[in-house]
Every structure is written in C-alpha cells, then in structure tokens.
C-alpha cells in the first residue's frame, strides 16, 4: 500500500496525484474536526472566561463600596477608592515615571540595537553565532540573578534615580529589539545600498538616507512592542528604583504586598489605573502590529 502510493507519487504528475488525495484527508478531517474544535474552543474558552472573571472582579471591586459573599459588590459605582488612591499616591508622578522609563529605555534600546542588528543581518564573519549568543544571554538569565548584584553596583554609581532605572531596563529588551529588527533589515535589498554607493554616496549617507527610511516599519514595530513590554517589567525596576523613581507596576506590587495598610478596593483602584494604561498602549500597539508579535518570533519572516 505504502509502496504503491510512493510509486504513484513518483510516476504520476503532481496534479494528477495531488487532487484526489488532497480531497480525501479534507473529508476525513471534517468528521474529526467537530471533536477537535469542541476541545479547542472549550479549553481556550475556559481560559479566557477565567481571565475575564479575574479582570472583571478587580474592576467591579474598585467601583463598589464593599464586597462580601455576594455576586456583586454593594454600593456599586462609587469613585471613593479612586479618590483615596489619588490622595495616597502621586498618580501623575507615577504615570510620568512609567512613561519616561518605558520610552527612554525603548529609545536607547533602538539606538543601540539597530546598528548591532544591522551588522548581524548584513555581515558574515567568524564567531557570529557567539556574538548572537552574547546578545541574547540577558534573555536567558532571570532578571533577579543579575538584578541583585546590579542593584548593589548601580546604586553605588548612578543611584536609584530615573536615568539608572531607564538604563537597567534596556538590558532585558535589547535582545528582543535585535531579534525583531534583524529580519526587517534582511528584507531590505542590498542592491539599494550598492546603487547608493555607486551614485557616489558614502557609507553614512547611504545608512541615513537609504537604510533607515526603509527600516522605519521595523523600528516602529520594535518600538511599540518594547514600550508595552517595559511597562509590565517589574523585577529590575523594583530592585533599583528609589521612592521617587517608582513606576506604576512597582507601586502596585508594594501596595499589594503590604495589603493590610490600605483598603483592598483602593489597591484594586490602583490596579485598574495600571491596567487602563497598559490597555491604551496595547490598543495603540495593535493598530501597528499583529498580536502574535508580542511573543518573540522564532523565525524571521
């Protein structure tokens, strides 16, 4: 049977063989697909339902006066916990810190990562694999492992101010930026650069007037994905930042960890503020990038 099929495949022309066999699995698939689809949608649906429940609980709790043993909180739609939270923390300061760190770290990562990715995408050289491993290593070591020594070293030189926090956050996102940018650079046809050289432009002119404009979609993708990522990055900022340089997520953790200090609803109000910030950025991001790009791409497309 197997040999016959193999023989057929070799002797007959592709179209002759492919058409009937292509149809056969299709019809078989349809019968099986009902069960597969059921399992798939039940599994994913269960996950998503719990997710919605979790987020919904936080939002409702922050808007109600109190919540004991009922389906919905009592005294719904009060803003008292938000007022509490705004008087407790300087939310404006936290928001501005969060954005300064996210945008600052992203800009630095792009400025540093782009030339590095350019070399990797364009040049062939010995030990290139070693260099790539070197760049990607921060992604494979947990932030706490280098964060604890980093915090003690950095505090000695830079202190826990915003510049230090920005710099620290560049480390884990640099590999990410390089990985995103490399395929974009590879896509740019080298003949464009060759033509530019031939027409008398030097390396620097070619780089800024040919390569950079063509890479802008890549830079935009990398930038927006990185900003969303940095907003949620917790460990390094937590280890390094002093009280004035705290970001939203670090403050949220501090509140949640010392949960006896303030009402639970107020912590959830803080969580909603943080969540709204990430959601706004996510929505902006999704107009530029595909949702699957939030996960490291394993292959250059």
């Amino acid at each position: 049977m197997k040999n016959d099929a193999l023989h057929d495949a070799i002797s007959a022309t592709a179209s002759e063989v492919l058409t009937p066999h292509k149809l056969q699995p299709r019809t078989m698939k349809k019968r099986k697909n009902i069960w597969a689809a059921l399992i798939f949608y039940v599994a994913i649906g269960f996950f998503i339902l719990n997710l919605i429940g979790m987020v919904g609980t936080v939002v409702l709790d922050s808007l109600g006066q109190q919540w004991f043993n009922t389906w919905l909180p009592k005294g719904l739609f009060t803003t008292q916990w938000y007022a509490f939270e705004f008087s407790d923390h300087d939310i404006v300061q936290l928001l501005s810190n969060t954005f300064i760190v996210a945008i600052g770290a992203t800009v630095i990562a792009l400025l540093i990562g782009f030339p590095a990715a350019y070399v990797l995408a364009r040049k062939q050289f010995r030990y290139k694999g070693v260099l790539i491993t070197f760049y990607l290593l921060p992604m494979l070591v947990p932030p706490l492992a280098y964060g604890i020594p980093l915090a003690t070293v950095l505090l000695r030189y830079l202190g826990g101010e915003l510049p230090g926090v920005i710099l620290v956050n560049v480390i884990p996102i640099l590999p990410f930026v390089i990985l995103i940018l490399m395929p974009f650079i590879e896509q740019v046809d080298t003949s464009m650069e060759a033509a530019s050289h031939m027409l008398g432009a030097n390396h620097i002119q070619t780089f800024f007037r040919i390569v950079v404009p063509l890479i802008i979609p890549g830079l935009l993708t990398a930038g927006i994905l990185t900003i969303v990522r940095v907003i949620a990055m917790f460990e390094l900022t937590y280890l390094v930042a002093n009280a004035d340089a705290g970001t939203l997520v670090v403050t949220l953790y501090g509140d949640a960890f010392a949960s006896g200090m303030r009402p639970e609803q107020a912590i959830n109000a803080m969580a909603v503020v943080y969540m709204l910030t990430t959601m706004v950025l996510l929505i902006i991001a999704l107009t530029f990038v595909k949702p699957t790009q939030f996960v490291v791409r394993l292959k250059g497309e």
Partner: protein
Amino acid sequence: MAEITHLATEPKAVSNKVAFRVDYASILLSLPAILLVLGLFFYPLLSGLATSLRPTENATTFSLTNYIQFFSTPDQVNTIWTTFQVALPVTLFSVLVSVPLAYYMRRGVKFERILTIILILPITLGNVMVAQSMLDYFSPTGWFNRVLLLFHIIPQPVTILHHWLAVEIALFIQGFPFTFLLILGYMSAINPDLERASRMLGAKASQTFWRVVLPISLPGIAVAFCLNFVANFSVFPSANLVGEPSHETRVLAIAAYETAFTSYNIPLGTAIALLMGLIELVVIGVVLWLQSKSARGATISGGKGV
C-alpha cells in the same frame, strides 16, 4: 538557544557576502550594544561573583563561606527543590497543553484575531497584575468558587490562594499564552506540503502528527519550554502575593531577595541569586542538548518549515 542562533544566522542576503573578516565599521556599529551587555549584564554578574566570594561585604579575602553556608543550611538547600517544584510542573503543563492546541490552530481558526488579542492580555498586564487580580477572583467568596458551588461541582469553597497551586495558576495564566503563541508561530510556519506528502503516502493524521509535525516542531517547543522555564524558575511577585512565601513557595528568588535586602546579607543573597541563574542555565543546556540529540535522529531538519 541553538535554535535562535541557527535561525538568526541563516544568511538571507547571500549576495552580500563581504568575506569573512571583521571591518572597523561593523565593530563600531556593534560596540554600543557590546558595551551595554558587558557593562550592565556581565560586569554585575562578575562583581556579584566577587561579592559572593567574600565572607562579609567589606572583606578583602576570598572564600567559599557563603556557598558553604547555603549548602549546609537545610532550609536554604530546600529552596532549590521548592523552586523546581514550582517551576517545572507548570512549565511542562503549559507546553503539553499548548502543543495540541497550537496544532489545531496552525491553519487558522474562527475568531483568531480576537482570541490572540485576549491571550496576549496576561502577557501585557504582567505578573504583578495577574497575581493581584487572582486575589479576589479565587478567594473563598470569589466568582471562581461561587460558580463551582452554583453548579454543585464542589461541596464547599476550595482554598486555592496562598498555596503552591495559586502560584502554579498565576504562572500558567502568563506562561500558557506565551508558549502557545510561540509554538503556534512555529507550527504554522511548517510547509503544508510536508503534511500533505505524509498523508499522500498513506499515513494517518495521528501518524503525520507524531512523525512529521512534532519532530519538525521540536526545536520550537524546546525553545518555548526554555523561555517559559526561565520566567517560572525566577518567579518572584506571584510567589509572594498569591503563594505562601514563608514555606510552601519560598523559591530561590525570594530567598535571594530576602537575604540581600531584608537581612542585609548582600554576599549571601548574591550567592543565592547566582546559584539560581546557574541552575536555570544548566536546565536550559540539558533541554537544548536533548533536543539537538533527538534532532540528529530525524532525517528532516526542521525549523525553517523547509
């Protein structure tokens, strides 16, 4: 690791082969990135190593005191075991659940975009937010228990929070979408002709899965496992917030942080942090080694979807 490297180095622009020598422009362009990784990643690691080899913070002599102290204290050594108990099951489970689901979704499904958008929510929200939102939802009077009680699935509310299980759930909520989308990206890149060829040669769907799709996806699955394991092995906020950080979920990250910043024993804390990184790298090394060994057996070299 090997996989990322392999894919990344794949030369697309063959015509641009400038010869195998490093020019000054390339060095100059790479220098900022190299200096950043050296200065903010390797230097802290090495200075941390030096710190961890000192009995006290200001001592001038080197000794293995901190490491000996760590390994001779049963409570401390147990944190390694605890960390594995927390990190390994949820990583394996995430990967095991992701593989069949990604296999089903590899050619696209209905509502794909909205499904992926919801799935990336936990990734963008981050581990702190996930843990915080679990506190109400999984509480004895939270919606999770209420729904189960309503349908008489459980006789009385189950205690989930402040146990090992809560940390597993927290890690799964973040880790599953991550591994799922990673493996999905890999599987959907496999050339459909390979499957078609397998089916044409008489293999059943299950045979095709086990002997064609799975072997080709194995490098991607291994990388997804590794990246997820890194995150789970260094679990910190959720182990503190929804776990039981004093005992049941006293993972290496908590031990390192508390020793360094609560008991102000920075040398010992740094030693624990470095051990955490080292153990985690060893696990990754073993996984990628196993993967490369198994890949040698397969005749179809996978990864690029051919």
